[in-house]
């Protein structure tokens, strides 16, 4: 339906170069022209709840971007604002270098959306609903393309089945098929793996990877940290309508992806032996606890802990217990949220 615009959309946009790159406070600047450029996006719902507060976000062409945040953070609202389901209260959204509030008809053809909810006409059949989506987005019928989409999602055998006869995971894949039916350049996946079993989730990750290899830019939301860690080039952390952090997944892991190993020694040490000087170690608990803190999220930490274990054995230092912990994206995320809450 119509691209509803707010007056603030156009006003605050005046004077900006269409492709100007002035990204969020990311450590690495965007390397290519943004496919999506969100500036000062706000949304206050009718009841007075502010779901988005001045969001600035730049998505690069061809990347997989994971939006990570707890329930009610504003992820779906953010996606809805871009896809036309939510009317922004303020701010601008540019897609493919053009203002989405005015050029929505041509721009939306290139955007696909897989919603969070299983919102489907349950009496329709798989192939009918997928063909309908393609037509609605202005594409000519293409049975071969639809067949390949359905096959890639293992839905071909179910093409004549009514949606109500499908399992939850299959319905979710129908939603994905609908979104892919018009070959979008920019794809939003709102919790694609909710309700999908582990095996299928792997399949789905692989398919998302394939889409990306074909040049589709993907923005997904997830609660599964490992999903973001596994797939995303960059991760944005959102909470209470604010973006807390946007960075390369690897950089986040490098910054904060630490390994901690705690060796309980049989006999306390007075000082670190020379043989262990090359490791980032500390003696705690009166010399009874040897603590390793290191790594960069690339697996280096785990390797070093293995090396350290061998070195301890070689140096004839006995230990009676060993605990290791990885600071996962989850911990980073939880830490970030806590910090912000303290600051607020």
């Amino acid at each position, binding site marked *: 339906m119509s*691209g*509803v615009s707010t007056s603030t959309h156009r006003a605050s946009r005046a004077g900006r170069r269409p492709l100007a790159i002035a990204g969020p406070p990311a450590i690495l600047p965007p390397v290519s022209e943004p496919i999506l450029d969100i500036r000062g996006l706000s949304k206050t719902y009718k009841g007075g709840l502010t779901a988005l507060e001045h969001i600035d976000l730049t998505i690069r062409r061809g990347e997989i971007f994971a939006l990570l945040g707890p329930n009610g953070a504003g992820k779906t609202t953010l996606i809805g604002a871009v*896809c036309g389901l939510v009317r922004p209260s303020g701010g601008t959204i540019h897609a493919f270098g053009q203002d989405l509030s005015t050029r929505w008809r041509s721009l939306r053809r290139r955007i696909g959306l897989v919603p969070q909810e299983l919102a489907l006409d349950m009496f329709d059949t798989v192939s009918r609903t997928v063909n309908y989506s393609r037509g609605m987005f202005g594409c000519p019928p293409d049975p071969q393309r639809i067949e390949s989409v359905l096959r890639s999602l293992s839905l071909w055998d179910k093409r004549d089945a009514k949606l109500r006869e499908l399992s939850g995971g299959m319905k979710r894949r129908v939603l994905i098929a609908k979104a892919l039916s018009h070959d979008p350049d920019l794809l939003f996946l709102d919790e694609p793996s909710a309700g999908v079993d582990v095996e299928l989730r792997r399949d789905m990750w692989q398919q998302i990877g394939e889409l990306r290899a074909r040049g589709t830019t993907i923005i997904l939301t997830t609660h599964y940290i490992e999903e973001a860690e596994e797939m995303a080039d960059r991760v944005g952390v959102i909470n209470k309508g604010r973006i807390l952090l946007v960075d390369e997944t690897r950089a986040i892991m490098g910054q904060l992806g630490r390994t901690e190993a705690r060796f309980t020694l049989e006999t306390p040490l007075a000082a670190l032996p020379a043989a262990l000087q090359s490791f980032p170690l500390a003696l705690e608990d009166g010399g009874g606890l040897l603590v390793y803190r290191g790594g960069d999220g690339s697996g280096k930490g785990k390797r070093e802990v293995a090396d350290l274990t061998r070195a301890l054995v070689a140096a004839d230092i006995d230990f009676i217990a060993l605990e290791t912990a990885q600071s996962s994206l989850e911990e980073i995320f939880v830490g970030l949220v806590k910090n912000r809450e303290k600051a607020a």
Partner: protein
Amino acid sequence: MINWRGAYAIFWHELMRAFRTAFGSIIAPVLTTSLYFIVFGAAIGGRINEIDGIPYGAFIVPGLLMLTLLSESTSNASFGIYMPRFTGAIYELLSAPVGVPETLIGFVGAAAAKSLILAAIILATATLFVDYTIVHPVLAIGYILMVSAAFSLFGFILGIWADGFERLQIVPLLILTPLTFLGGTFYSIDMLGQPWRAIALANPIVYLVNGLRWTFSGTSDVNIWLSFGMTLGFLAVCVGIITFIFRTGWRLRD
């Protein structure tokens, strides 16, 4: 640039959806019309004199047609847009390159098209029971088209306004059906004495029924231009409301 393919996709999908439940959408109106003809045309009509020089059976054809057009157009269009709102499937429409014209062509067009097909079926059914003529066939088709479009628009608005199945039913049941029955479907309002005649003239459906009746028989209880004017006015008001709905995203976008 209008997304013609999108409009066509919605139109076709909606039309097929409506006809997929073949019993409800075709057999039911045919059955209802037949019952009306048997009861009013054959059983009672035999004891009623001609009205305005027209046999009673033929007299009620346009009224019955109007009855079906109003209720079918309204319910088809309202369900057509209410169901995706209810299931959430509307997300796709809202995110698609589809605006006011595409939506109207798709949803309202499909509802109106279905009404036209039903009108043809009902007129064909009527020939089994009564002899009737259509004095102004081209105007009759035009009038049927206009009424179908107007009430499909009305139904569309209803489907967007409704926030529960009760509301969806209540307007046709409590307002449309009584007004249609009292609107001269089965009688000429000239048969009424005052003050009922004056009250009847306040019923907009009277003008619709009489407009259609005029295209069939060439006679009408009310000024035929007033009938056409009222129908066009209703059409315009509906288009205005729908434009407002899309501008503001009322009940569609949060």
